[in-house]
């Protein structure tokens, strides 16, 4: 399992975000892409029905119950490219909460503005976003305001256009790249102006607290989580 270098540890502490190029090796990435597309094809009619009924957002398409559907997705949760970093940053008390296996249709409007996910009173909340396709300029890349996770950060202006946020950094990347970020910080998805949807997987973790340990959350996966480390990561024990 890869541990953070001193430079990564310092950067994560100061900026709240780390780019992890080629976190997924090519063979694994190809398998994940195939599984993702397979699930998306199966789930798309249900999503479109939900969109028409106003019960599902058109602005993004999340695979339903992905971890139960494809064993390869389960392997992503504790992948050594970033799991060691997550464990380090949470003092070894890492809990996986859920994942978003997300297709982002093109649109002139991003589905999210600049936002943070949790208040700082929440235990440390971390996300790993894995690009499943190359994400260049105007392709809905992840963006973060370095340092915005810090207690004395901000205030940040109300901006009409995402690119107007002072100090932000856009993380273009290749398929298989990962971004690890502290969800206290301001982040967004930039506008995808291309005709191509952006596919990514967002894995959501938190520093383990008794309140968040809910064995029922991943009970359906219990028979596939056999090691004590895995069972602890998924909150089964």
């Amino acid at each position: 399992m890869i541990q953070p270098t001193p430079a990564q540890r310092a950067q994560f502490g100061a900026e709240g975000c780390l780019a992890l190029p080629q976190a997924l090796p090519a063979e694994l990435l190809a398998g994940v892409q195939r599984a993702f597309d397979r699930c998306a094809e199966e789930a798309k009619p249900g999503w479109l029905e939900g969109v028409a009924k106003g019960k599902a957002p058109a602005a993004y398409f999340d695979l339903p119950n992905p971890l139960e559907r494809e064993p390869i997705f389960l392997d992503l949760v504790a992948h050594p490219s970033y799991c060691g970093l997550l464990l380090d940053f949470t003092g070894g008390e890492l809990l996986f909460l859920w994942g978003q296996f997300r297709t982002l249709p093109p649109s002139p409007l991003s589905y999210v503005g600049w936002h943070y996910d949790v208040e700082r009173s929440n235990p440390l909340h971390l996300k790993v976003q894995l690009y499943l396709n190359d994400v260049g300029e105007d392709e809905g890349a992840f963006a973060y305001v370095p340092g915005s996770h810090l207690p004395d950060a901000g205030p940040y202006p109300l901006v009409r256009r995402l690119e107007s946020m002072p100090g932000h950094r856009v993380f273009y990347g290749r398929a298989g790249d990962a971004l690890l970020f502290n969800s206290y910080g301001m982040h967004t998805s930039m506008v995808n102006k291309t005709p191509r949807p952006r596919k990514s997987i967002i894995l959501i973790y938190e520093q383990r607290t008794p309140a968040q340990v809910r064995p029922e959350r991943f009970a359906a996966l219990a028979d596939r989580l056999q090691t004590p480390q895995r069972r602890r990561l998924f909150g089964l024990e």
Partner: protein
Amino acid sequence: MAHLDAHVHVFAKASAEFPREVSPDMPGHAEATVEQLLGQMEKHGVEQAVLVQAGGAAIEHHAYLRRCLVEHPRRFLGIGLVPAGETAPAGHMDRLAGEGGIIGFRLFTLGGPADPLAPMDARTFATYPIWKRAAEKDYVIWLYPRAADAHLVPYLLEMFPQVRVVFNHLMVCPGEGSFSLDEKGRPRIEVPMPPQTRYSTLGLKIGRILANTRGLHPYENVCVHLSGQYAFSKEPWPYRDLAGWHASLHMVMRADRLMWASDFPWIAEDPGYGKLVGVVDELLPGLGQEERAWIMGGTARDFLRFPPSANG
């Protein structure tokens, strides 16, 4: 400053003089006359209003609306309808607007791909000619799209930044099968609030934590009605379950892009017009006097270019 009601309906009984379509919520014998509306407005300090066509989209169906606009040119402006499938929408729009008073047109569908992942070209949308004409003639688009059309809206806003757009009824886009009539015969929309369509129409992550987002609506040519609460709320007046969504809209749109509206006549009996005049105070209790003045009339007056008010 007197209030301005930014979305009401008036209609006469169906007749040869005032032909209209009949429907379960607007049977032929039903009427909501301009005199009834004026009585409520005067009683509650509302000086002007936007009359929105109901009862059919054909030119002749607009007869009662046009009569009201002619008789009260300083009180009312009007919003017309364009028939679905109209092959020459520009001519229809110009004809209705040409006689004065009708400043815009209401759209319920946009006519683009229902699949958000399909290739998008706004010029192929069925309503593109309507938007194009609105841009050419400075007509307002009165927007109440279905959920299936919500993702098409940004393409049109991007293409027509010069067109003034008013999102009706809290920016809700009703889903297929969500519409019914309540026991009082008025529209009832079953929709999760805040609406799932907000990700397409608002473009900001609003909902779970109100204060976590730092952004304004990207399109300054767009306003939103604070109206229709009775149809979406699961509670009686003052519809407190919608307070969070009102706060979100206020934060993202700001007061000078929000318009209070009653949706008369559907609220005339329950909860009553007077209570609707107070709904903004109930659901946005922290508003300052200036912001309140914008929402209760200033925004609509400026954005829709109402004539100076006068009784007549």
